[in-house]
């Protein structure tokens, strides 16, 4: 018994007395191929340069709730968090993210343009540092759409020309806009119409016409799986997943870029960090969001860099060797008809329209 006791005490001391290593930081992201691209383009070069070891936490899906809980408990363990712009706005509103002085705390472009000009109107919140532009867009089975592949987003609503199931995201964002667009509303008026009850009902009525043929997805990986299975003829998802399915997995899928909705994904620094950790986090952000780094990420994943100065530096895919530029959502060929996610609209209307959407879904 005595031996056991002393062993326990000794081991407790051994564990507790682990020497403090060189600085480390916890960076939170989404996991999968996206995290891998950040690992290769940002984390590894940064660790090599500064010796700081980076712990990857793939909890971005729960980031909003967990940040609020950590903040309330007074114990924020994350240093930098990757979130989509809408979540960044929400976190900023709730006081959970630190405000950033973009011009002074981010790198300037090589030609001297200030960071805020380089990012332009992609800085949708004071707390948000944009990283990539991705889009939610459609993919279709090339062997299941007959002789004329779909080219217009309204082909999704056309059950006669393209019979079969579709897959749409299980939330109103994007679906309502597409529904209104295909119900005849002009692109510039979509959000004005959507702000009214009548407009919302109109969008739901249009979605009703295909409701029985829709499989609703929650995770970005669902649609590529459904397309590969042949469960759906066409489905919406993030363009990077479609790129991976087409180019890496060699599936018979084609891209329908029409009316793709741009969205932003980027970094926030949680509020409530100690000064030392804040400094560390800002140092990382400065490095990871400069022009070359953002262009480097495009070597691993088909998402567009948020900086205007990075676009000409986009090169080839690191493993496949193909040119990445034509696969970017921002490429002129693909971006003929695009939406930008309307952050201020959805920040206000999201809860209300979501309740109506879920009620409609449940009928």
């Amino acid at each position: 018994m005595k031996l056991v006791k002393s062993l326990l005490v000794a081991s407790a001391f051994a564990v507790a007395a682990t020497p403090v290593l060189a600085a480390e930081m916890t960076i939170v992201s989404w996991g999968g191929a996206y995290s891998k691209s950040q690992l290769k383009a940002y984390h590894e070069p940064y660790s090599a340069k500064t010796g700081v070891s980076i712990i990857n936490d793939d909890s971005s899906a729960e980031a909003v709730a967990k940040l609020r809980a950590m903040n309330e408990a007074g114990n924020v363990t994350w240093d930098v968090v990757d979130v989509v712009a809408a979540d960044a706005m929400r976190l900023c509103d709730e006081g959970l993210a630190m405000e950033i002085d973009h011009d002074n705390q981010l790198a300037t472009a090589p030609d001297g343009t200030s960071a805020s000009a380089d990012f332009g109107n992609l800085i949708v919140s004071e707390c948000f540092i944009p990283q990539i532009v991705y889009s939610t867009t459609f993919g279709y089975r090339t062997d299941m759409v007959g002789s004329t592949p779909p080219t217009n987003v309204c082909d999704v609503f056309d059950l006669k020309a393209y019979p079969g199931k579709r897959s749409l995201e299980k939330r109103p964002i994007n679906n309502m806009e597409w529904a209104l667009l295909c119900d005849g509303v002009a692109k510039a008026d979509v959000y004005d119409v959507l702000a009214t009850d009548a407009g919302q009902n109109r969008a739901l009525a249009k979605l009703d016409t295909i409701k029985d043929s829709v499989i609703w997805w929650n995770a970005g990986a669902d649609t590529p799986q459904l397309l590969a299975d042949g469960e759906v003829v066409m489905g919406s998802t993030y363009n990077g997943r479609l790129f991976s399915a087409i180019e890496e997995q060699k599936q018979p899928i084609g891209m329908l870029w029409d009316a793709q909705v741009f969205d932003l994904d980027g970094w926030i620094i949680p509020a409530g960090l100690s000064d030392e950790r804040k400094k560390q986090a800002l140092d990382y952000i400065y490095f990871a969001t400069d022009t070359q780094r953002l262009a480097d990420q495009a070597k691993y994943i088909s998402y567009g860099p948020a900086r205007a100065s990075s676009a000409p530096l986009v090169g080839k895919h690191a493993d496949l060797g193909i040119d990445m530029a034509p696969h970017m959502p921002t490429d002129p060929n693909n971006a003929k008809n695009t939406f930008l996610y309307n952050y201020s609209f959805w920040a206000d209307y999201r809860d209300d329209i979501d309740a109506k959407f879920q009620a409609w879904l449940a009928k």
Partner: protein
Amino acid sequence: MMAATTPISRKPLSFVLPIMGAVGLLVGLLIGTSNGISGMGALIGVVIFTAICVIAIRAPLNEKGVRWFITAAFFLAGWGLNNIALGLLGGFIGAFTGWFIFWLYEGRYRAKLLPYLTPAQVFWHYSFRVICGAIFIFLISPIIVVMPLSFNAQDFFTFTEKMLALDPAGYSLKHYADFLGIRDDSNGEWIRSFWNSLIIAPLATLISVSLGTLAAIGLSQSHVPAKRIIMAILISPMIVPLIISATGMFFFYATMGNFMELQLGLNKDLVGYIKVILAHAVLGIPFVIITVTATLVGFDRSLTQAAASMGAGPVTTFFKVQMPLIFPGVISGGLFAFITSFDEVVVVMFIGSASQKTLPWQMFLGLREQISPTILAVATILVALSIALLTTLELLRRRSERLRGMSPA
């Protein structure tokens, strides 16, 4: 039911033929519908199967030969009609048909049953087992179905054409390599998660079982104040929706973690493990409580009294008299608690941090972000390990029974 040796005798053709005819009707109906000629197909089916039956029984060959012949005939028919997969299926059907005919004809179906059973009871006996078989198939089929998928050469949960045609190019071991961390672009996170699960689950189970057994014994004493309320409190972790438990417990464990890290100076990772282990222990407690209190309900109090009358103290009584008798209940509760912890994803995502990533968390990420059949490879490995473990236990049990002379060798 004893292994009775009921005398069996041959049944007349008038008994066997209608049954085979019925079977033929069903099979013919199935195949006929697929080709659009259901009525005709049924008829053909009846004819074919009764013909096979008559030939089988009247053939000059011995039984074994006839059965092999039928099997080969079906196999060749299947292969010829389509491909080797259909041929194999045909072979199975043929073997079954052959066995079935002689099982009925020779009256063997009566062999293991009690001699006084009526035909209706015999029929119920076998139909009941068929129903149970169907339920077992229901239980096991998803597991069986996904095992081949773990060998998929593609990164999807799809049975590709190549796989169905049993083409070796469609199969690959890359997902197993991914799990074991020996593929070049994988980073050993699966193995790390596996180890984390193996550390957290047993420790959590240990805590819930020890505290829960003590409390259950306390609850089964004769006079417990406020017993209903205490039971309700102890069972509450099972009832509260998991996501709310996760969020609520987070605040407590964050404060506790702060205290342990700052005041006691413990290592951050150790604190993280402690938090998750305690949270899982709380979740497993209801199962242990319900199990052990139930076992103690049927416990004979006079045994403890007898032990006391022979001079044993309470602790000795507990370990020598109570424990062995309630052991099955404790094991059962421990099993439920272990599974709850091993398979739990919501609480650990909230309360743990990246270094405590467990296997279910990794699988959940796998489903959301990259749907890769690696999770199926993990499942197959765990299934293989469980089968090995359970079979070993059963063999050991049989061996100990044999040694104690309780069963014939």
